[in-house]
């Protein structure tokens, strides 16, 4: 008999939450699957906002000397577009995958610290709200002594110093008002969320693997989660300190990055990119992981060079800390440093190449089923290669001094982060759709989505290479008619709207399939990893009994043997096995105790934005309330047991 233990009444501050459905069940949940789903929806919401910002930018640039946006609005829009896409869209979508899949892939019942997991989600949500509240509370204006022809509108009262916040432009003197404080403090809050989840995932992977799940048997997606968590854990502290300095400079009169007081603006660049470059790999490695799951499954072949792919991933993560100054080749770094960082940047191309070749090796000789996830993964390889190759041209330092700060760079990193990360993410969204919802998505709409997006994407970002080489600089509110850049800018804008259309197709597919889609068969893809050996949608308890893993791709090997030629042969017992697995998965034979929901993560998290507002509005009262919320959240947390009732 299945029994999820009812929460026992107990004398805590509140009664412990007990709803299993309805909004409170989501607000108080500590279940990694629910948290993953919430991460996914929240991130997609921000993705839409970031996308709208991009469309607004593209309308402005579709004509030379356009006046659709004011300069202040344009600067706010591109800053928010970058910040949103990186910190509020791609990172949390990756976190959605990590949350939902990591415990399933290693055969665990939940992550190591379920309440901490809820905490990082709520901190992320409050961080996002805090950052976006700048449109209501934030102020921005001309630099000290400068003049504006018109008041800055609400659209322009957002952070405007760029997602990279270069000093001293992002300092108080040149970016007055509170908008950049919202940025600095918002990123600080979001960073805390990511740091906490990084601790959680690292601990989970080290300590929560099921029987027989040795490190070298873990799915590649889990490996990439591991690598990303380390990157987060070691790069976020650097930016946290740097943002701390910025906040002090802007609010308490210090001059860490201001020459007037002995500070150093180039130091900010070093600190920012010491975080910022690993951040690039934080964004792309999850997609590497997803693609490494999808390609073997739909090729019906094991991943080519599993060990090489894993080590290449860690190689990239490691070298990723040694290439930061390639973002600063035109800055005031020494000639020797230019040469050194140019070489280290070339080196990082090697493990990246290894991965690409291994993926090609995986599909070579396979039996490719071109379902939507597979199409996106193949598209990922194609687009990522372009981004990788243009990346190599940046390591040629002299060439980079022509390309840096132009649309060539914009093209490059969108090929990496959109053609790479986002294609990988869409691949994963389709691939695990049946796992999460127990329904099938609509394959035709999926394919329409893929082709529209592929075409729109290339129309948008392909010509940008050319625009950059023709002299269109980044973050440019207007360009002169005489620069002859209009034609391709129009094409780019058209492409951007095609992407928007493809997103609409995706949303229709998602909403429709989730409600009325066909019931997903058990193991719809004939998959390889153990998350498919349990029913879909995943039962609250994940695995009814802890699985015992005997090899890499354990689930596949329980279904298939190899004949003398090495071809896969389905075991005669496989069909029965699937029926048994479904039956067992739905009916645990033992009492399962799951962590109870809790109010305290959200209580604790709600204190952080108040501390942020306290700094911005210089209000002691807000700070006191914030600290009280944090302390009472921690106190309740510390005194309530994770699971009730023995």
């Amino acid at each position, binding site marked *: 008999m299945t029994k999820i233990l009812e929460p026992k009444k107990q004398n805590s501050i509140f009664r412990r939450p007990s709803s299993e459905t309805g909004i409170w069940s989501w607000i108080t949940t500590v279940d990694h699957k629910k948290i993953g789903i919430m991460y996914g929806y929240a991130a997609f919401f921000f993705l839409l906002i970031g996308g709208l910002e991009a469309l607004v930018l593209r309308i402005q640039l579709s004509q030379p000397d356009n006046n659709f946006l004011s300069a202040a609005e344009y600067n706010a829009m591109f800053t928010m577009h970058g910040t949103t896409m990186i910190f509020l869209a791609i990172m949390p979508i990756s976190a959605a995958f990590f949350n939902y899949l990591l415990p399933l892939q290693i055969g665990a019942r939940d992550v190591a610290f379920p309440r901490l997991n809820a905490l990082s989600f709520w901190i992320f949500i409050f961080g996002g709200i805090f950052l976006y509240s700048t449109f209501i509370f934030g102020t921005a204006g001309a630099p000290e002594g400068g003049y504006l022809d018109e008041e800055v509108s609400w659209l322009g009262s957002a952070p405007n110093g760029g997602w990279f916040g270069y000093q001293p432009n992002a300092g108080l003197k040149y970016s007055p008002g509170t908008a950049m404080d919202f940025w600095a403090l918002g990123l600080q809050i979001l960073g805390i969320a990511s740091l906490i989840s990084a*601790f959680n995932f690292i601990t989970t992977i080290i*300590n929560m693997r099921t029987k027989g799940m040795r490190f070298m048997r873990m799915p590649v997606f889990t490996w990439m989660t591991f690598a990303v968590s380390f990157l987060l*854990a070691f790069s976020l502290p650097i930016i946290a300190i740097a943002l701390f300095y910025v906040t002090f400079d802007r609010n308490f009169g210090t001059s860490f990055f201001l020459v007037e007081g002995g500070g150093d603006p180039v130091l900010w660049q070093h600190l920012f990119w010491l975080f910022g470059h690993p951040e690039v790999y934080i964004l792309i490695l999850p997609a590497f992981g997803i693609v490494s799951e999808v390609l073997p499954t739909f090729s019906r072949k094991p991943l080519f060079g599993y060990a090489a792919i894993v080590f290449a991933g860690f190689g990239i993560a490691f070298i990723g800390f040694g290439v930061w100054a390639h973002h600063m080749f035109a800055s005031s770094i020494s000639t020797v440093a230019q040469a050194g960082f140019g070489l280290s940047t070339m080196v990082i191309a090697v493990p990246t190449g290894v991965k690409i070749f291994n993926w090609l090796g995986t599909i070579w000789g396979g039996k490719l089923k071109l379902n939507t996830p597979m199409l996106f993964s193949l598209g990922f390889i194609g687009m990522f290669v372009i981004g990788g190759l243009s990346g190599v041209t940046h390591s040629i330092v002299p060439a980079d001094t022509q390309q840096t700060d132009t649309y060539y760079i914009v093209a490059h990193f969108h090929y990496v982060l959109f053609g790479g990360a986002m294609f990988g993410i869409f691949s994963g969204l389709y691939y695990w759709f049946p796992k999460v919802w127990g329904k099938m998505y609509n394959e035709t709409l999926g394919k329409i989505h893929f082709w529209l997006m592929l075409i729109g994407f290339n129309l948008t970002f392909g010509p940008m290479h050319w625009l950059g080489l023709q002299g269109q600089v980044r973050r440019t509110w207007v360009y002169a008619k005489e620069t002859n850049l209009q034609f391709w800018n129009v094409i780019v804008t058209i492409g951007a709207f095609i992407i928007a259309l493809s997103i609409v197709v995706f949303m229709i597919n998602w909403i429709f399939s989730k409600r009325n889609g066909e019931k997903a068969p058990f193991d719809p893809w004939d998959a390889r990893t153990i998350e498919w050996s349990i029913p879909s949608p995943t039962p609250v308890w994940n695995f009814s009994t802890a699985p015992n893993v005997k090899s890499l791709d354990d689930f596949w090997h329980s279904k298939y043997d190899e004949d003398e030629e090495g071809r896969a042969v389905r075991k005669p017992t496989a069909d029965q096995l699937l029926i048994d697995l479904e039956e067992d998965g739905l009916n645990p034979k*033992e009492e399962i105790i799951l962590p109870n929901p809790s109010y305290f993560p959200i209580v604790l998290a709600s204190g952080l934005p108040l501390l942020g507002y306290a700094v911005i509005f210089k209000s002691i009262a807000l700070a006191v309330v914030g600290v009280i919320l944090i302390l009472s959240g921690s106190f309740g947390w510390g005194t309530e047991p994770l699971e009730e009732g023995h």
Partner: protein
Amino acid sequence: MSTAHAYPHEDTGVETRKLGMWVFLSTEILFFGTLITTFMIFKGKDFPGIKLTDVYDIPFTSISSFVLLMSSLTMVLAHNALESDDQEKTRVWLLATAMLGAVFLAGQIYEFTEFYHKGFELDTNIFSSSFYVLTGFHGLHVFIGVVLLLSLWGIGQRQNGLTLESGMNLEFVALYWHFVDIVWIVLFTVVYLI
């Protein structure tokens, strides 16, 4: 019918929460590492103005450093007492540790006040700013540590007393406290002695 908890396995044999603490402390190293590195960069600047060397009082800071070091010793004593299940001694040593931490903090506040009187303020120049942020960040850690220690002490007052397994266990706090002490040794060397 058997029961299965959410936490049956510990593949490494290290208790999960403790492992989490180690991971947390490893990022703390990065936090302090960044602060110390930038402090060193700023310290090496050729910039006119008042410097820490113009205002500091090494004997005073040495004494407060010694106090903080002693608190690591009392922390160990508290841990030993708990292992031999001596609740009362555990509480005493915990309180002692917290008090030593508080004395250190008081010393820091006194020191900051003195520096302010001598015109070495947060926004004076890059030397003062980096000094206050670095040592202040450490002071915040000590403060959180004191709060944790006092909470443990408070929990110890309750009926069941402290156990090594209880929610916010002593080992967990001890790890943190020792870390904060070690960081101070590094800071003291870097900030005052070099």
